[in-house]
């Protein structure tokens, strides 16, 4: 069921286009993440939803109602800022109670609601403290408390975990996710951390330079990126993206990457129809490449030399080089080789992603 819809949402700051013709639907009770590098427009989008910024074009619709002329306080949304924005001169209790106090609720009711929320978040003992007496994680929970107590229809979260240390972040990711599921409130979550997005989101909307690149559930984003940007952004270590051109030779089709060529005759059909030219980008994930050592090295697509080896316990990340091109490969289990050793590289043609170099869009079918 649709909760919020963006129609041709555009925001310009002078000449700079922060959000460019965004069209997106957010469904009821889902946790959707706006993901992208800094400056991609995700925070601006969030502020447009909240009503702190006004769109240059397009509109935001919630529950069928156009929000353009609705004041932030009437939008039934709560926002958790990156800095939490906890009022420093008020105790945790007063911070959480603030929205209720503004609504002029009765003192008893305020007390009841605040305690309920505090219990939910496990911060009952901290209520009398001021923000400066709280740790990062505790402050975060107070900020959440303030957002929850309003009983909003939508949660807006602007990188709420980025100010915390790594361990706490990992722990709170799970907590936030289960809290959201429990409360069943539609949540729009902004982050630049793709691991965070992948682990928390029902769907992820990837943005770059104000444009929506793709919106899909995490799995699909990983396995079927529709643009080269998304392909390169999602996944650690990132997908290998190699510039190449499409050539036909003696009845077979190849991707020529300069240093090496790959036979893609099986995919020829789709490529010819969707590509705008012959300039393409070949994408293949590190786990979809095989290393062949010893005699077997001639059996791969081409031969390269070992550049670096990073043993990570469960797996080894090997970078090989051919000419000026580097390829990142994931090897499970043990791997022994010396730097500079020649090895064979075999790319799984079933798992390649081919993108148009000019538009960035995907050319081959999933």
């Amino acid at each position, binding site marked *: 069921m649709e909760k919020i819809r963006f129609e041709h949402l555009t925001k310009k700051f002078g000449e700079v286009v922060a959000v460019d013709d965004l069209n997106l639907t957010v469904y009821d009770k889902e946790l959707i993440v706006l993901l992208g590098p800094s400056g991609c427009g995700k925070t601006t989008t969030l502020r447009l939803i909240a*009503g*702190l*910024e*006004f769109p240059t074009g397009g509109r935001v619709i919630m529950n069928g109602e156009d929000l*353009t*002329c609705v004041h*932030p306080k009437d939008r039934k949304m709560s926002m958790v800022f990156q800095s939490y924005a906890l009022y420093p001169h008020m105790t945790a209790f007063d911070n959480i109670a603030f929205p209720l106090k503004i609504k002029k609720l009765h003192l008893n009711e305020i007390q009841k609601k605040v305690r309920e929320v505090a219990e939910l978040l496990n911060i009952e003992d901290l209520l009398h403290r001021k923000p400066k007496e709280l740790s990062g994680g505790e402050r975060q929970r107070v900020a959440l408390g303030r957002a929850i107590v309003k009983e909003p229809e939508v949660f807006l979260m602007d990188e709420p975990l980025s100010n915390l240390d790594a361990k706490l972040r990992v722990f709170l990711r799970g907590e936030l996710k289960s809290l959201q599921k429990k409360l069943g409130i539609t949540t729009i979550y902004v982050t630049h951390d793709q691991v965070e997005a992948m682990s928390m989101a029902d769907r992820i909307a990837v943005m770059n330079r104000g444009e929506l690149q793709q919106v899909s559930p995490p799995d699909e984003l990983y396995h079927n990126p529709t643009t080269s940007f998304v392909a390169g952004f999602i996944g650690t270590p990132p997908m290998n993206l190699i510039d190449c051109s499409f050539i036909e030779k003696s009845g077979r089709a190849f991707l020529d990457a300069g240093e090496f060529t790959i036979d893609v005759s099986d995919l020829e059909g789709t490529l010819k129809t969707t590509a705008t030219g012959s300039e393409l980008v070949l994408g293949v994930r590190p786990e979809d490449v095989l290393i062949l050592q010893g005699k077997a090295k001639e059996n791969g697509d081409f031969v390269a030399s070992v550049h670096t080896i990073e043993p990570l316990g469960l797996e080894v990340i090997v970078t090989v080089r051919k000419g000026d091109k580097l390829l990142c490969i994931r090897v499970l289990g043990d791997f022994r080789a010396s730097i500079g050793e020649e090895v064979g590289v075999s790319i799984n043609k079933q798992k390649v992603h081919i993108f148009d170099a000019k538009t960035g869009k995907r050319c081959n079918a999933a």
Partner: protein
Amino acid sequence: MKRESLWHTRKAYWYIIPSLSLFFFFFLYPIIYTVYISATNANFFNIMKGPTFVGVENYETLLFEKDFFYSLIRTVLFMLTSVPLKVLAGLLLAILFSSPLVKAKRILMPLALIPWAAPWFFSVLIWRGMFNVDFGIINKMLISIGLSPINWLNNAGNAFIAYNIVEVYLTYPFMMATIFSAIQSVPPDLYESAIMDGAGSWAKFRHVTLPLVKKPLFWATIMTGIASYLIFGVPFLLNSGGPAGENEFLLVYGYKEAFNLGRYGYAAAFMILVFILLAILVFTFLKLTKMMEE
């Protein structure tokens, strides 16, 4: 809605209007009214019945009035003496109190600033007492070291000196504090890098402190220059503008024309001229310094 953001709203005007109207009605409008008055022959006798419009007559009279020019010259003289004194005092004191060699700065400096808090006329009148020929403490101290007492306030020349002393006393805390905070805002790394380059104290002052302090110093000089030009309270309260009006600086002269002689229209025209001249002075000064910078 064509607005940019929540902060772009016309309601902003409503929040500003109260203070703006207060300022307009009780301050700005009177200033404008001064222009009107200057074009009438308003004086003590006809003010209630309604003075008549005389156009630029007052201004004409003024420009031929020699007292006006004497007053202007005296004021300029005062500016030429007091401004360097005040700026130097502020600068030297600021340097002194920011020197690492001075101990107990945290106690001494606030103490040195206390005269700032005293109401100005309070200080001026105390000085009036101290300058008294017969029993003023200053003359008593002079006598005790064998010098003869000076007739401070009844002698035009000495009174001029007295004005300077009092004016420096009144302004040194402010100048000192302004320049001091400008000095404090120089990042310490600059000094450290100068030390590494082999700079001694004087070189450090000349090449690090001075350039960065130049701008606040410049503005402080302008402000204090304007203050000297518009000096009123000090000469007026010390000795009513010199024995027999010999030290009547511009604003003192204007005040007396208005409230001792009751020539309101004339005095208003005088004030307007004073301010026009001020604007010209400041403008030329700024233009000159800008030209010198290029």
